[in-house]
Each structure stands twice: as structure tokens, then as C-alpha cells.
């Protein structure tokens, strides 16, 4: 694991340099520089359409799947450029996992959902799979609720449970970084709090990048915050600083609710 830097700041897990992204002729990201600290929560905030989700999806190369996307610049994961031709995208995505806006469990049993990742990566032994499934579900704070119905359908769970299942499914492949795209925007307030609690626990072991529309959520859970506007990062600092003493007037206007 990356150690703490000499200046006392946590070392960066991901370093983004001069990143530009185009959808056809439309530029969605402009000269993005960002340092994502290891084992901390980085929040990306900004109004709709400002590029924060697009940016998040560059970190596991999920934008590769969209036609007409061009990307320039560097995204270094532990110093390795993930856009390098030598990068194996499947092993990258295994290291950098993602939780989506809408819970998207597979139409299989709860067990098979969690076991999906380990299975596609070649694990067949039943005993090991059982262990991973239990551990992942416990880690995602879902085990107690589902342990008696592991063979039941995942789509029968509530929205909040489904989202925690998706997190468990992700933890089962032992990622290093977890990307979260508004993970609680489709959930009720109680489920949202549970997810936030979980996110805070997960940062002990994982590097987390979370996109959120909910300013209170960013303030509650994150360590550092980046404010996006029109595809650019306007401000990037410790969350406390961004929310109490923003340097840029546009950041202040946004977090005080004057636009967006």
C-alpha cells in the first residue's frame, strides 16, 4: 500500500494530469488535474452536466464503451497510466470498482450476485466462494438481513438493500478503489444514512471517490472535495475548507445554493 508522504499528507492513489475528454465535438472535460488521496473519501460535486460522472467513469475506463469518446491526458493509478496501451482493462476494472446511481443487481440469487465477480475471475471452489460471499455481505452490512435467503432473488430486496448488495458484489473482487456515482440518490433518507455509514467504514481499507448532488452528503462523508463546473475543476481542497472558506466565488455560490 502507498505510505504516507513525507509532508504528512496522505500519498495519492490516483493522479490525474491534464485530462481532456470529448464526446464527438463536445468537450466534456477540460484540463483536469486531480490528486485522489489513498484511503480517504474524495467527493466530486457540481451542477448537473458539469462532467463529474464523466470524470468518474474515466477512472475505470467505462467511457471506452461509448462511441465517439476521445480522451487525452494521463490517469495514473499507483503511478501507472491506465490509458497506456499495455493496460489490461479487465484487471484495471477489477482494481477500480464502481457502484452505480441506480442499484443494478443481476437477476440472479443474492448469493450468485456476490459470487459473480470471483467466479468470472476463475474461482470455482465452493467453500472459498461461501467464505467470500459471507465476508463481503458482512462488510456491506447486509449479512444479518439476508443470511437466511441467500438463494432468494436479489431483485426482491428493497432499494437500500439492493445498493448494499451491489457494494458487497464489488467488495467480493477485492478492489483497491471504489467509485460511487450518486450511490444514494435513488434511496430514502434512512437507507441513505446506512450507505453513508458504510462508506465511512470502507475508507479504512479502500480509496473512495464519490459523485454526489447532495451537498450535505459531501460535507458529511468526504475528506476532500472537488468542485466541477462546465468540465473544469474550479476548486479542490480539504472538504472543510471548500465548505467553509471557498476561495472561488463560484464555489461559494454553488454550495450556498445560489445555482445548480
Amino acid at each position, binding site marked *: 500500500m502507498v505510505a504516507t508522504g513525507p509532508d504528512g499528507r496522505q500519498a495519492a492513489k490516483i493522479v490525474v494530469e491534464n485530462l481532456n475528454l470529448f464526446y464527438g465535438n463536445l468537450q466534456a472535460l477540460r484540463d483536469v488535474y486531480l490528486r485522489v488521496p489513498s484511503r480517504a473519501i474524495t467527493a466530486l460535486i457540481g451542477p448537473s452536466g458539469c462532467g463529474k460522472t464523466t470524470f468518474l467513469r474515466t477512472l475505470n475506463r467505462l467511457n471506452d464503451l461509448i462511441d465517439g469518446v476521445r480522451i487525452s491526458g494521463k490517469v495514473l493509478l499507483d503511478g501507472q497510466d491506465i490509458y497506456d496501451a499495455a493496460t489490461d482493462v479487465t484487471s484495471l476494472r477489477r482494481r477500480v470498482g464502481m457502484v452505480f446511481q441506480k442499484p443494478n443487481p443481476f*437477476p440472479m440469487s443474492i448469493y450468485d450476485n456476490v459470487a459473480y465477480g470471483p467466479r*468470472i*475471475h476463475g474461482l470455482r471452489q465452493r467453500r472459498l466462494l461461501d467464505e467470500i460471499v459471507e465476508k463481503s455481505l458482512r462488510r456491506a452490512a447486509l449479512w444479518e438481513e439476508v443470511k437466511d435467503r441467500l438463494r432468494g432473488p436479489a431483485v426482491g430486496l428493497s432499494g437500500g438493500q439492493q445498493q448494499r448488495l451491489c457494494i458487497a458484489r464489488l467488495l467480493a473482487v477485492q478492489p483497491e478503489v471504489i467509485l460511487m456515482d450518486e450511490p444514494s440518490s435513488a434511496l430514502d433518507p434512512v437507507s441513505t444514512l446506512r450507505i453513508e455509514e458504510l462508506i465511512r467504514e470502507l475508507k479504512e481499507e479502500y480509496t473512495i471517490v464519490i459523485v454526489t448532488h447532495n451537498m450535505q452528503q459531501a460535507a458529511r462523508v468526504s475528506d476532500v472535495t472537488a468542485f466541477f463546473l462546465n468540465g473544469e475543476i474550479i476548486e479542490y481542497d480539504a472538504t472543510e475548507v471548500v465548505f467553509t472558506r471557498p476561495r472561488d466565488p463560484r464555489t461559494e455560490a454553488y454550495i450556498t445554493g445560489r445555482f445548480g
Partner: protein
Amino acid sequence: MSHYWRRRLLNYLLLGLCVACTAVAVFPLLSILFYVAVRGFQALSPEFFTQMPRPVGEPGGGMANAVAGTFIMVGLAALLGLPVGIMAGIYLAEYGRGRLADVIRFMTDVFTGVPSVVIGVFIYTVVVTRMGSFSALAGGLALSLIIIPLVTRTTEELLRMVPYTLREASLALGATKARTIVSVVLRSAAGGVVTGVMLAIARAAGETAPLLFTALSSRHWSLALREPMASLPVYIYTYAISPFRDWQVQAWGAALVLLLTVLGLNLVARAVTRSRYRY
């Protein structure tokens, strides 16, 4: 107030029209079912499935060879047609982009609408004349050409209905695209695909024209794929237009068996579709 009544009147008028049209559409269907059931039931007996056809004038006998022939040729058609149809559907839904895919899609639609007699004549020219004889193989091949476009299009449409977010979830876990298609997309759409497959097979089982030109028919018990083979639709055709009363009765029996087979396939399809994990 008069405006209000006009609207109500129009409402009832159109409702009545819809009900009437539905009745017109359903009536022939139900009469066919009823008629075939009543007339066919008289001809059915265990011998129908175990005995061979007898010469004119000799009472009794069955269509064991035609029942077996239909199963063999439809099975052959499924064996040849389903992999092609399903794979083509996967290609169109998951990989097909641009002009080539559009052309294939369009041709498949056209293919679905080609009269089955044309398919029969085509196989006759390409296979039967070259092999020098009518054969079960040619029959199965002709039926597979009925199945392929139907299965291709239903597979494509059903795969497209699987939410894109499921594909992303799988890819984001480090799965390859091929793995995602097999383990998530196909699996999610399995119930629907099976239904489509069953319907296509049912459709092929009832085709007469393509078999007349390819497998022809046979009065004997034959399981050889390189020889002519009997089938229920062709027997229905020859027996129904024959002047003999016995044969006509047996044609009704064959029609009922065919109808029940199709019904059975549909029921199986429905049962399979009722999966617990469905979206």
C-alpha cells in the same frame, strides 16, 4: 351538457366497435380449435401413434411414421437453426453497428416474410436436385430456414430489453464483453428467448409447403435422413384432399395432434418464462 353526452356516446360507440372487432377476430380461431378438437378426437386412439398407415379400404391403422418424421425433422431444424439464429441475434444486439448490421437486420425481416413455399423450392433446387432424391435432411434444412429469421429477431429484441446498467455492472467488475453477454445478458433474457424459440419451433412444426418439395412423404417406417420422410402436415394435406372417408377422418386426427403439440410447446415456454429472478 349536450357536449358531455356526445362524448359519452362516442365513447360507447368506439368501445362497442372494439368489442365487435375482437369477436370477429377470435370467432374463427375458436371455431377452428373446436372443430379440430371434435373431429380429430374421433380419429385418435393409441393405434394412431403406434400403427403404420394402411391401404385404402382397410380400416384402422395410424400415422406412427408421420409423428416420428415430424419430430425428427423439426428436431433437425432446431439443431441447425437455433445456434445460427441465437448467435445472429447476439451479434445484432451486442456487436452489430453501422450499415452491415442494418442490412442484415433488414434482410432478416424480409426473410421472415418470405412465403414458405419459396423456401421449399429453393431447397429443392439447391439440395434435392443435387442429392438426387427427396430426403429428411432437406426437409430439416428447409424448416431451419423458417426458424432462423424468427429466432434472430426475437433474440435481438429481447437482448436489447436487458437494461444497459446490468452490462455496465458486469464490465465494471472486470468481466469481458463475451463473459458479460453469456453470464448476464443472455441469462437475464433467457425466459424470453426460450419463448421465442418455442414459438419458432411450433411454427416450423406446422409448415407443409417446404416439406412437399424437400422431404416429400413416405408410406413406410423410415428413420434414414437421406431418404424421403413422412410428416404430419404433409399427411394432413394428402389425406384431407383424398376422396376416402377413412383418410379424411385420420387427417383430422393428425391436425389435432399437431395442434396439441404446438399448444404444448407454448405451455412449456410459458412455464419456463416464469423465472423467480426476473426483472
